[in-house]
């Protein structure tokens, strides 16, 4: 695998950022915690972790990260959002304000409360064997417009979506020891930006 040209940033405001950093470390990839605009310089990619999208959106706006993040995602920087991170990359009604970088509409907490959280074996296009998907108070992807494309479907709904260099997962690959989805993303980062 080619090395990405710079570190991969992980938005470290709140949520599962430690788990993403650990996944990158296990893949032997350089990473950087992102809390302020200066942390965004010369990244080869960016991960928006799971957690609470309201908290991430609010603090990203306060710390002047929101607009730079949006511009980076729109300019072709590879970005990978899991659960709350996918909500931020996409669109949707109501709170919180989102980056709207992908033409993907997500409905928050759409499966219900925590007792409706579930796991499922997922068939994902880039992977030969099934992937163990952990869904925690997960969003539903209710609408996809081209060029966004589903790479995995569960219960009739997309759960992994690719749109140019953006990758959105409504489940949490970072909660498992299986690095294959992260590996796909790192490959995209190694190929560099496309516009």
């Amino acid at each position, binding site marked *: 695998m080619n090395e990405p040209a710079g570190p991969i940033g992980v938005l*470290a*405001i*709140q*949520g*599962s*950022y*430690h*788990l993403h950093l650990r996944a990158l470390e296990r893949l032997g990839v350089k990473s950087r915690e992102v*809390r302020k605009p200066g942390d965004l310089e010369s990244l080869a990619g960016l991960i928006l972790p*799971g*957690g*609470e999208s*309201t*908290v991430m959106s*609010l*603090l990203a706006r*306060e710390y002047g990260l929101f607009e730079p993040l949006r511009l980076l995602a729109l300019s072709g920087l590879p970005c990978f959002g899991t*659960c*709350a991170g996918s909500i931020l990359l996409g669109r949707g009604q109501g*709170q919180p304000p989102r980056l709207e970088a992908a033409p993907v509409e997500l409905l*928050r*907490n759409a499966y*219900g*409360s*925590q*007792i409706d*959280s*579930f*796991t499922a074996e997922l068939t994902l296009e880039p992977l030969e064997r099934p992937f163990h998907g*952990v*869904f*925690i*108070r997960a969003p539903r992807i209710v609408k996809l417009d081209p060029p966004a494309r589903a790479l995995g479907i569960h219960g009739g709904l997309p759960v992994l979506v690719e749109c140019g260099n953006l990758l959105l997962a409504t489940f*949490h690959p970072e*909660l498992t020891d299986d690095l294959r989805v992260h590996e796909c993303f790192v490959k995209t980062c190694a190929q560099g930006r496309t516009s």
Partner: protein
Amino acid sequence: MKTKHWEEKVGLARMLVGGVIMDVTNADQARIAEAAGASAVMALERVPADIRREGGVARMAPIQRIREIQSTVSIPVMAKARLGHFVEAQVLEAIKVDYIDESEVLTPADEENHIDKHAFRVPFVCGARNLGEALRRIGEGAAMIRTKGEAGTGNIVEAVRHLRLIQSEIRRLSQLRPEELMHAAKDLQAPYELVRQVSETGKLPVPNFAAGGVATPADAALMMALGAESVFVGSGIFKSGDPAATARMIVRAVTHWKDPAELAHVMEDFGSPMQGIELSTIPPENRLQERGW
């Protein structure tokens, strides 16, 4: 050892890392908490400082009040049940709260037995003062541990003690030889399998959050610096002079705990914490942390 839906239970705890979970008693407080950036709210009848002052039996919050909180915020809603009161817990599960805190802050319903948390679909968080207590709770099915601290005092000293103790006991376990672990389990009064697991991995199998006595942004940052993964704040917010501002500052302090310059900036206008209580003035029998074992 794994209970049903264990991955989902611990999974939600891991999503709450690096955030602040705030005690709220009604929908208005929940709205303030969410707007300030709380990653979850904890519904309870009265905040610990009021329970301590007013006395009486403290129970789970009224259903109607919890439902109002659930319909007001989109972040996870937790609620407290009394130690051992599995029916309060069943009711909280029936109304679909996202997490249950089997909490020493409420008046215990059972002085010997905690709730069998394996039997539930909803995850539980429990308080602990030391590693043995943490592992007993995990053995019963808790998917998140928090320090007990001394709730309702606005005094961080007990939470510091509990957090440091749990960590030093974990460090000690990880240096033991395999044949020494059964004796360690006996000393800790903890399940052997969990003792072995902690010794191997050097950490608890579930996230470890801080709680009990957090009153200022600096207290919250101290908890993170001592290795807590997230912070619960009880009376510290709604017993402060300006709850919205205090809540906002504590959230930012938890995100930027590594950066003293940013902390100074966050705390610039912080002026009215809750007054707080010196621990030596609370006789041991009145300490909430002594409830449960």
